[in-house]
């Protein structure tokens, strides 16, 4: 089991979920984030997931796979995923590693990433404010 301090927080903003990865995750942490996010998408009916990886100094095959899996699971649950803030050295390394993050939409900045996700108005009555959890 993971201590709560070992979990990546997921913030809910309207119909979006925001994740900022600021620590060097070990593999179980990455898997926990994947599970937590999938559950949160279902619980909140979120339509978009924004993952900020500007704090990550590396993305190896395990974290790359986590990002691809999150995007795939979110898609099945009718939510779009955008990964933002990848550092240039990380991008070069990923490509040389042979990892092109299939199925993952990326954007350079949070602002541009937000623009790729559905606007709140598109879902008007579908928002579920009653689902605001203690961690929102």
């Amino acid at each position, binding site marked *: 089991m993971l201590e709560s301090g070992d979990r990546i927080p997921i913030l809910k903003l309207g119909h979006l979920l925001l994740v900022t990865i600021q620590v060097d995750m*070990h593999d179980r942490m990455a898997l926990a984030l994947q599970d937590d996010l999938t559950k949160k998408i279902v619980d909140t009916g979120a339509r978009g997931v924004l993952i900020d990886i500007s704090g990550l*100094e590396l993305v190896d*095959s395990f974290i790359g796979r986590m990002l691809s899996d999150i995007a795939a699971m979110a898609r099945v649950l009718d939510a779009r995923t955008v990964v933002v803030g990848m*550092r240039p*050295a990380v991008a070069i390394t990923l490509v040389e*590693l*042979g*990892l092109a993050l299939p199925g993952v939409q990326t954007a350079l900045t949070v602002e541009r990433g937000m623009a790729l996700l559905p606007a709140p108005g598109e879902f008007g009555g579908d928002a579920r404010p009653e689902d605001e959890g203690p961690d929102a």
Partner: protein
Amino acid sequence: MRALTPEPHALDSDEDVVRARHVIRALAVDAGLRLIDQTKLVTAVSELARNTVIHGGGGRMLAEVLENGTRTGVCVTFEDEGPGIPDLEMALSQGFTTGEGLGLGFGGARRLVHDFDVTSAPGEGTRVRIVTWR
């Protein structure tokens, strides 16, 4: 040739893999590697350290700065006493996996560093040595 006596770092858990990344990042910075080479090296270390934990059943990492004439490099060695690799060529090919990963780790790590040597035989464990030069 050797600037540092390598001290072994245990590789037995997920947390050890993260520690290995930090140790090598610090060494790469000290050795004056460019940011892009630091990132490639640390990513290769992450892949190989994970392999040691998962496929090798645990092992150790040794790290040192090499001085070779005018060249400076960071050398990292991974050792385990696990089952070994029966077919190296296949293990290094893109997309080959015996586990749950993408099969990019081993072959990918080779592309991220300048020198890459593997010694392995069934039942005799695995030793991987990588070097990134400045």
